[in-house]
Structure formats: structure tokens, C-alpha cells
């Protein structure tokens, strides 16, 4: 950090800084404690983890080795569960993007009759609390014969992610000038060409934000995954983590290690796309 030129801070500046620190330090501790605790367990041998130390005497990567070699009863399907989480998250991202982009284009650019009404209905879905929709959704998936099938979770998550996706994409596509479409029509472009060559490139930042949103939503989902999938080789990582609790002598250090591995990709993706996410997802909020 660069030091300012030799100028002593005034008393007032010192107290302001002190007051800010008085807020900042508790905020830092509050934010980091559960995450640090998880990390601490991941690098501690079992005895250290259970002894309440703030730093292990012998930090080790042994827990990670056990997880990556699937050397525990609870971890025997680690790779396949990780793969399930990944496939489902990517599928939800792709499907949501497809459905929401098409719908937003249709509502905002083509102004199809009834489009606005459908968007309001979609918004209504967005406001049904997720756990409330879960009960009838579970029943419906059973009727469709999709229980224990990855498609049930994919479709459920697409249902939950789409309304917000459509709403955000519609907001940002309303901002594109109509003259663009008119000019393209004058040049003889068909509707599909406008969609592909004019609309999609201009919407790229919002599409990245929405794709990331849907992928993270699906990767992080616990409740629906826990209800809709149950076979050990079909479930996603969060459900497997929840299953650790079934035993009385749960290997907590391994649970925390697996949890840490599971939490890394979303955190990394979030920071990689932070610029898009914050701009794209909070834009609508401020307007209201």
C-alpha cells in the first residue's frame, strides 16, 4: 500500500477510521467463522478436529486423500455423485437459457399476444416459496414416473430458475432499441436471423449472468434433490452430505472435507463472473 505524503491524520480522521474498524472486524469474523471452521476440519486429523483447537497441531491433506480415493463407507460413490451434480447443473443452465431466451425474445421483441400475461404467471411462480411448491412437485414427478430419474431434478430446477431468468432477460431486451429489429427487417432478415444475428450477440452479458445463476442454483439445491432422488448412485453431492448425518458417529472431518470440495466450484464461478452477476441480477431490483 502506498503511504500518503507526510501528513499526520487529524483526530477526526482517526476516530472515523476506528469506528469503521469497529464495524469491519466483527463483520469479518461473523462472515468467516463457519467457513474457516469447515476449512479447519478439512485439514485436521480427527483428534485435532474434535479438540476445539483454532489451528491443528499437525495440518494434513490426509482427509482430501481419503475423499479422492473414496476410502470411506460414506464416500464410496463420491465421483459419481460429483458427476451427477455437474451434469444436472450444466443441463439446468443450458435448458433454462434456451427456454428463457426464447420466451424473452418472444415477449419483448415479437410482442406476441398473451406474452405479458404468461410472464406475470411466471413471476407468480417465482414468488411461490420453493419449499411449498416442492410438495405438489414431488407428487407430480411421481405421476409422471420421473422419481429417481435425473430429469425430475433437472425439470424441477428449470421450472424454478426460468421465471426469474425470463424476467431479467425481458428487462434487458426491452432496453435494446426497436430500430435494430426494424433495420434488420428492411434488409430482409427473417425472424430467426434477427434472433441469432442481432438479438443473441447483444444479450450476451445478461445471458452469461442468467446461465451462471441457473447453474449455481442447481448445483446448490438441496431440498428438491433430497426429495426427488434417492439411490446412492443417483443422488447429488449435497444429498450425500446430508446422508452423513444419518449415522451417530459421522466422520465429521470427512464430511467437512467433502463439503469444502463441493463449495469450491460455485465460489470460483461466482468470483469469475462477479461483474456480470452483480450488474445483471441487481439491475431490476433497484428499478422498483
Amino acid at each position, binding site marked *: 500500500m502506498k503511504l500518503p505524503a507526510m501528513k499526520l491524520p487529524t483526530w477526526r480522521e482517526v476516530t472515523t477510521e476506528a469506528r469503521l474498524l469497529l464495524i*469491519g472486524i466483527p463483520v469479518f469474523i461473523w462472515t468467516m467463522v463457519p467457513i474457516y471452521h469447515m476449512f479447519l476440519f478439512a485439514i485436521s486429523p480427527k483428534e485435532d478436529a474434535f479438540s476445539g483447537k483454532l489451528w491443528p497441531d499437525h495440518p494434513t491433506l490426509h482427509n482430501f486423500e481419503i475423499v479422492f480415493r473414496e476410502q470411506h463407507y460414506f464416500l464410496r460413490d463420491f465421483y459419481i455423485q460429483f458427476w451427477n451434480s455437474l451434469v444436472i447443473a450444466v443441463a439446468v443452465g443450458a435448458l433454462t437459457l434456451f427456454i428463457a431466451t426464447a420466451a424473452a425474445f418472444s415477449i419483448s421483441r415479437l410482442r406476441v399476444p398473451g406474452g405479458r400475461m404468461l410472464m406475470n404467471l411466471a413471476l407468480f411462480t417465482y*414468488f411461490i416459496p420453493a419449499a411449498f411448491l416442492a410438495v405438489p412437485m414431488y407428487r407430480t414427478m411421481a405421476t409422471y414416473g420421473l422419481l429417481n430419474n435425473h430429469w425430475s431434478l433437472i425439470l424441477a430446477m428449470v421450472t424454478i430458475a426460468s421465471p426469474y431468468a425470463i424476467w431479467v432477460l425481458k428487462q434487458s431486451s426491452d432496453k435494446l432499441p426497436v430500430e435494430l429489429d426494424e433495420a434488420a427487417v428492411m434488409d430482409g432478415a427473417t425472424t430467426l436471423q434477427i434472433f441469432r444475428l442481432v438479438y443473441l450477440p447483444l444479450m450476451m452479458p445478461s445471458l452469461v449472468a442468467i446461465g451462471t445463476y441457473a447453474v449455481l442454483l442447481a448445483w446448490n439445491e438441496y431440498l428438491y434433490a433430497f426429495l426427488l432422488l434417492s439411490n446412492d448412485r443417483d443422488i447429488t453431492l449435497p444429498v450425500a452430505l446430508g446422508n452423513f448425518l444419518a449415522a451417530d458417529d459421522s466422520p465429521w472431518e470427512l464430511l467437512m472435507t467433502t463439503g469444502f470440495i463441493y463449495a469450491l466450484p460455485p465460489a470460483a464461478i461466482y468470483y469469475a463472473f462477479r461483474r456480470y452477476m452483480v450488474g445483471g441480477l441487481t439491475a431490476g431490483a433497484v428499478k422498483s
Partner: protein
Amino acid sequence: MAITFSASDSATAGAPLSARLTPPQVWGIVLLAPYLLVFLAFVLYPVGYGLWLARQPASYVALFQDPIFARAAVNTLIFLVIGINIKMLIALFLSGFFVQERRWIRWLSVLFILPWAVPSIPTILSVRFMLNPEWGVINQLIFKFTGDDGPNWLNDPAVALAMAIGVHIWKSLPFWTLILITGRLAIPHDLFEAAAVDGATWWQKFRYITWPSMQTLYVTCTLLSMIWTLGDFNSVYLLTGGGPADLTHVLSTLGIRYLRLDQLNLAMASIVCAMPLVLPLVYFMMKRLSR
């Protein structure tokens, strides 16, 4: 008049569908169809079916006779009225902190987002173990410094519910703070400069500049957070599992509990009972957002 109308109506209705629609409109319908299908199959049908299941008065009688339901309803109200308001007040306060221009505050704001960016399962389980009466780090530290055994945190329903609210706040505070920060940054800066020239105090600036321009956003955020919190299953389920003795359930975990016990009617009835709370909030939000 009426005859001409019906004549022209039947004339258009008689024409093939494609003749009445321009090609862009046909594409519009085609592009809207995927979402329409998803909506019909996974929202309208389940909700309709659920309401149909919840039609019998007998399920409501059974529900109201279940002491767990009354307790869950009270817990839900505590969660919403106390928990959310505390959360939003902290978020409002912290948004003022994070707009201060300091390099270290910018770094802190990057870390501050972490609870929201990471999945809730591992972190909630991490808190759960911290609160473990024998092995958890909190009680071990209490023992080290005072020589006394710490409380059995999750075994007291009031404390356990408070902890669940705490976990919920930990998880969603960053999101709401972020929204309120964008709200604060939208306030024109010269207002504050003018106020500073006039010698306004910190409180006066907040009372006469910040609050009037943030009021609507703050209320919208509070309502939206209340709606979503009704569906917050993880904070309670993963921390306390509804225990001890099913005393910390909220409506969302209760519905899932009935579902797991194969009492689908009760599950749907408990959700329908929450509707008087949900629908006004939803109506209000729809009016605001669909503009």
C-alpha cells in the same frame, strides 16, 4: 351491428390459422411454447392437483389438532417478523458501511459475499458442529476459559430457533446488503455534499436524504425476503432437523415432514394455511415488479 360482427368473426375463424398470423407472430408462439409447456406441466398441474388434494375439511381438522402445526405456525411468524426485520436493518446499516471508500472495505466486501456464494449445506453443517455440546469448538472454548460446561445449544427450542434464524441471516445477509448498496449508490452525491455544507449531522443525512430515497426499495426487499424465507427449508432442517421434539419446525419443514410421513393431505393443508400470509405479499410484489 351484432350480425356484422358475428359474420366477420366467423369469417376470420374460418380462415386457416397461419393466414391470420404474421410470420413473426408464429415464431413468437413457437418460441414461447417451451416455457408454456414447463409452466403447464410443472406449475399449473402440480398446484391444481395440490389444491384438489387439500380440499377435504377433515385434513384441516387433523392439522389443527396437531400441536406441531400450531408451534410451527408461531415459529414461522417469529422467523419472519423478528428474523427478517433484524436482517434487513443490519443490511441497511452495513450497506452504509460498505459504500465508504476504503481499500480494505472493498476487500472485505469481496469476502463478505462468500456466505451467499457457497452452498448452504456444508456451512450450515459446519455451524451445527460448532454448536455440538461436547465436541463443538464453542463449548470447548467456554470450558477452557470458565471451567464450566457450555449450554446444550440445540436442545433448547428457543435457542435452537434463534440459531436457525442466525444461520438464515448469515446466509442471506450479503445478498440484501448488496441490493441496498446499489440503492445507496443510486442517490445523487451532490445531495450529501449540500447537506455537509449546511452542517447536517450523520443522523440528519440519513433521515432526510438516504431514507426517503431508499424507503421503497427497503420495503420491497423486506417483503420479498419474507416470501422467500417462508420457503427456507435448509436453515431449520439442516441445523435442528425440526427438533428437539419437533418444536423448531417452520411451515416449510413441516410440509416436508408430512410428505415424508406419507400424509400428503396434511402437507398440502399446511401449505394452504400459509396462503393468507403469502398471497397478499405476492400480489403486492407482482404489482411492483411487472411494471
